């Protein structure tokens, strides 16, 4: 087979974004997946978005990625979470049809000119003097490449647990790829162990829907992609809610001795924010009920995903537990829930470009780095693809900063801090949350994406158009005024309870939390919801954003204070041994990154700063 610039191993959410990014940037790319059909497969709940995650999906979209586009083509239920809270923390979540999503991804990939897809499995990689040279597949043999992105998910030593039964595996039906894993284990990469779980799937035909409360999607339906179209939306269907009860909890408690979690079989650390139902019942013993979101897996399947009860209890206990729940009295399980334990490579062995520190030209992205979630995977895949392509083109690497994108927060957290549990994005991880919003991901990133060659004409023109309209409207808002006692002022007070005591511009009025754009007496009907969101947020957050920007400038100073690679922490007198150990193992690249390490005190940062300045002075 020909040689390639870039080879991406794995066709999950990280893999497809990496391959697509490379191809869009014009490098000759090969995507290797052991089954063409499962490219773009959603292995767990078929939902995209949610708090912090939709932010990532939209950033990937703003850089021309696939995820949000495929979502808009396959979603069957949309909801904006935190809709009653401020713009910055609102998050779109879409339930998709699993099959349609996969097909949409595969169609988008087929349209890429520089991309070849190979169905094969990678058995080994060829490394010469610390640099990746080629991959070896079972059927095609050796394929040469300048850069390789590895996105193989939980392939490392995965063990599935159902009750006390275990079998090796990744997802149900997929063989774990162990030869490559062994090869990588022989390298000096640090390895950690995690676990995650999934609930049993239910047969929708056997659910008594009349007993569940309906949860309709939002109308009008929101969009995930900046270039999305409401006309492309699938038929929208409802989700439902039911709850566990004391009987459910009793069944779970009675079966704990057969749970691998509680019988000591599982060693991996699970996510605190997404506990199994066993964990919930044990940890929140005082609560008599937990919510279950009953979500459809697609339009043409009766399979149902009961969100909130992931479990690894034995099959009999799972069935008993399910049937104790209102509406599920007669329900059949189509697939058992299970817990999976897997190894991941400590992301602290990666650089910010996601290139590994031990093998040049090899990049890791996705669950292999200890993250969970499709969006987290997609964001890393995109960034690994971009940086591999930039290196191939002899250009400067690029990773957005923490103040520019959630993608930046994600990568900086991973490579600086590593992770002890499956890493999921939250808005609270972003210091500059008010700036990093769903409504402005394109304003933050699309220009850069265009420069890099990631953004097609459609998105680019749409973005330019939005930028112009938004600017024009902001200007117009400053000229339109409302006088006190006027008819407009009275209507405004009637609608919002806000009084106009002196003549105010619309711009000034929009600063008040209670006044929304549509409350204003004149408004531009041609503006899209996205533009209005952006305008409102810009105005309402202005004061706070100003404060955050000052903070960013201050931090940038520390970010620019590079810690020399040769710095010997033994020579920085005054550091406690503990701090010294932490710094020596983390080797932060800048003062700002050092300050984000856990357990590094401000005093330690001062010592470091003084030391660096002194060394610089000595060096002249």
């Amino acid at each position, binding site marked *: 087979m020909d040689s390639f610039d870039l080879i991406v191993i794995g066709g999950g959410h990280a893999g497809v974004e990496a391959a697509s990014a490379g191809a869009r940037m014009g490098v000759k790319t090969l995507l290797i997946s052991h089954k063409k059909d499962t490219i773009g497969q959603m292995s767990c709940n078929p939902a995209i978005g949610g708090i912090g995650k939709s932010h990532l999906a939209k950033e990937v979209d703003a850089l021309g990625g696939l995820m949000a586009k495929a979502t808009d083509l396959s979603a069957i239920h949309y909801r904006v979470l935190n809709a009653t809270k401020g713009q910055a923390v609102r998050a779109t979540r879409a339930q998709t049809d699993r099959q349609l999503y996969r097909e949409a991804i595969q169609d988008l990939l087929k349209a890429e000119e520089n991309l070849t897809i190979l169905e094969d499995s990678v058995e080994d990689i060829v490394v010469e003097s610390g640099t990746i040279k080629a991959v070896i597949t079972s059927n095609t043999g050796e394929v040469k490449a300048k850069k390789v992105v590895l996105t193989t998910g939980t392939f490392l030593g995965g063990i599935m647990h159902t009750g006390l039964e275990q079998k090796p595996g990744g997802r149900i039906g997929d063989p774990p790829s162990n030869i490559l894993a062994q090869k990588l284990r022989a390298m000096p990469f640090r390895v950690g162990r995690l676990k995650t779980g999934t609930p049993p799937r239910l047969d929708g035909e056997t659910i008594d829907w009349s007993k569940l409360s309906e949860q309709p999607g939002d109308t009008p339906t929101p969009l995930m992609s900046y270039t999305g179209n409401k006309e492309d939306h699938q038929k929208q269907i409802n989700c439902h809610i039911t709850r566990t009860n004391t009987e459910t909890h009793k069944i779970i408690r009675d079966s704990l001795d057969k749970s691998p979690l509680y019988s000591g079989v599982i060693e991996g650390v699970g996510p605190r924010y997404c506990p199994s139902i066993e964990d919930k019942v044990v940890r929140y013993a005082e609560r008599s009920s937990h919510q279950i979101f009953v979500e459809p897996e697609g339009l043409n399947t009766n399979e149902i995903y009961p969100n909130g009860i992931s479990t690894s209890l034995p099959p009999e206990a799972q069935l008993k537990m399910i049937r104790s729940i209102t509406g599920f009295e007669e329900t059949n399980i189509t697939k058992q829930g299970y817990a999976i334990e897997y190894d991941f490579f400590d992301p602290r062995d990666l650089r910010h470009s996601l290139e590994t520190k031990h093998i040049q030209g090899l990049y890791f992205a996705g669950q292999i780095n200890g993250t969970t979630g499709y969006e987290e995977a997609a964001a890393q895949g995109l960034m690994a693809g971009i940086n591999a392509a930039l290196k191939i083109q002899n250009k400067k690497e690029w990773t957005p900063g923490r103040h520019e994108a959630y993608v930046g927060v994600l990568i900086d957290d991973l490579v600086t801090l590593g992770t002890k549990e499956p890493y999921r994005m939250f808005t609270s991880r972003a210091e500059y949350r008010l700036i990093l919003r769903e409504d402005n991901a394109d304003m933050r990133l699309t220009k850069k994406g265009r420069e890099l060659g990631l953004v097609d004409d459609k998105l680019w023109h749409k973005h330019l158009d939005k930028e112009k309209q938004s600017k024009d409207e902001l200007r117009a808002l400053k000229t339109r005024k409302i006088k006190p006692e006027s008819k407009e002022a009275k209507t405004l007070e009637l609608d919002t309870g806000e009084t106009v005591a002196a003549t105010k511009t619309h711009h000034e009025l929009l600063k008040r939390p209670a006044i929304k754009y549509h409350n204003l007496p004149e408004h531009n009907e041609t503006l899209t919801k996205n533009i209005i969101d952006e305008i409102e947020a810009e105005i309402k957050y202005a004061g706070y954003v100003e404060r955050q920007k000052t903070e960013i400038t201050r931090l940038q100073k520390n970010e620019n204070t590079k810690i020399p690679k040769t710095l010997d922490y033994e020579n920085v007198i005054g550091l406690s041994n503990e701090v010294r150990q932490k710094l020596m193992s983390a080797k932060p690249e800048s003062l700002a990154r050092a300050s984000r390490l856990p357990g590094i005190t*401000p005093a330690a940062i001062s010592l470091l700063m003084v030391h660096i300045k002194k060394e610089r002075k000595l060096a002249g």
Partner: protein
Amino acid sequence: MDFETIVAPATAPGRSGVAVIRISGPLALQIGGNICGEVSQPMLLRPCSIKNSDKKTVDRGLVVFFKGPASYTGEDVIEIHCHGNPVIVDLIIKEALLQGARVAEPGEFTKRSFLNDKIDLAQAESVADLIAAQTDSAVLGANISLSGEFSNKINVCIATLVNLRVVVEAAIDFPDEETPDEDVRSLVESANDQIQFISGLIRGSEHGALMREGLGVVILGAPNVGKSTLLNCFAKENLAIVSDTPGTTRDLISANINLGGVPVEFVDTAGLRSGSQDSIEIEGMNRAKKAVENSNLVLEVVDAKDFHGFERLNENSLLVFNKVDLLEGAVPGEGLFVSASTGEGILELIDEIMKTAGLHPGIEIPALSRRRHILCLEKAKESLEESVSLLKDKSSLELVAECLLSAQINLGEITSPVSSDDLLGEIFSEFCIGK
């Protein structure tokens, strides 16, 4: 590169019974050994001969070794006690310099103590304050700061804010977990508690800052209303010349008095009148006006028996009617009535001065504090108040989170600022020598 060893006298310059020289850093033990002989056992005060590099005895004294981190700076420290003669002190320091130490910068011992995590910033500041304390209360106040009591209060408040932030962040990131209204109500309550707490700290700190900085009170008024008599009355001695001739006081005369632990400087000034041709008197009046600008408080004195209403010289001043002992009939207006010559009403006047200056009689001795602390506390309070008003309407939780974070950062600045070299430099430069 080795971190440097520093040396400086720990006692004031000049002749005295005993002087102490402090050496801190990796070479301290070695230098101490060379000068004083064997000193390996920590925390043991040992008599010794103090010798120079030619093995000649310079003095006889005591030496003590503090092994890092159990020392003031957190590093190895040697203290040499010699006779308090500047020549001897210089000889010993020169010896230490020859052996690789360098002279400590002002505040450097305390700076190292802070950098080595022995004390936090508020504590470090209190060391300088303790040295500079002018009244007994200021000494006690500085010790409250040094002991970490003040820092502890700040840290407790920070811990509470962190808990509040956890609740708010959880409500933002886990919206499906249904945050009940009680949670928001208890957030408001808790934030209000912290506002109260910080307000208390601010009141204490204002008092504490005055204890540290002192209070400047200027006595202002027309000629011959008894300003100088009032100064003498405060000082309880005849500092200013008193006569019936208007314009007797030409220059500024001041008296320092301890009022409730606060060092107060009263400044008597030249009487203000128009039409004077005397260039010395005119200069005196200019100085009086300058003194007002630099003061915390102005006492505007008028003659009670000769008062027919007038334009106030200073809007924020306290109006004092003097010579009430000579007054016949009704009081001429609203204000404080005293007689500087009989002492009548003086205690009430002092109470009023304290109250106006923000001193709270009966307050427990507060931690000695600085304007920097008050500024941080006020900013934190402001942010908390903003968060409470934002909580009225649940739609702005992300802004509530901003405010809480901002309050937390402001409080943190008091004890452990995110390293800003300038701030640290400024704080440690206040030490006059070594320490």
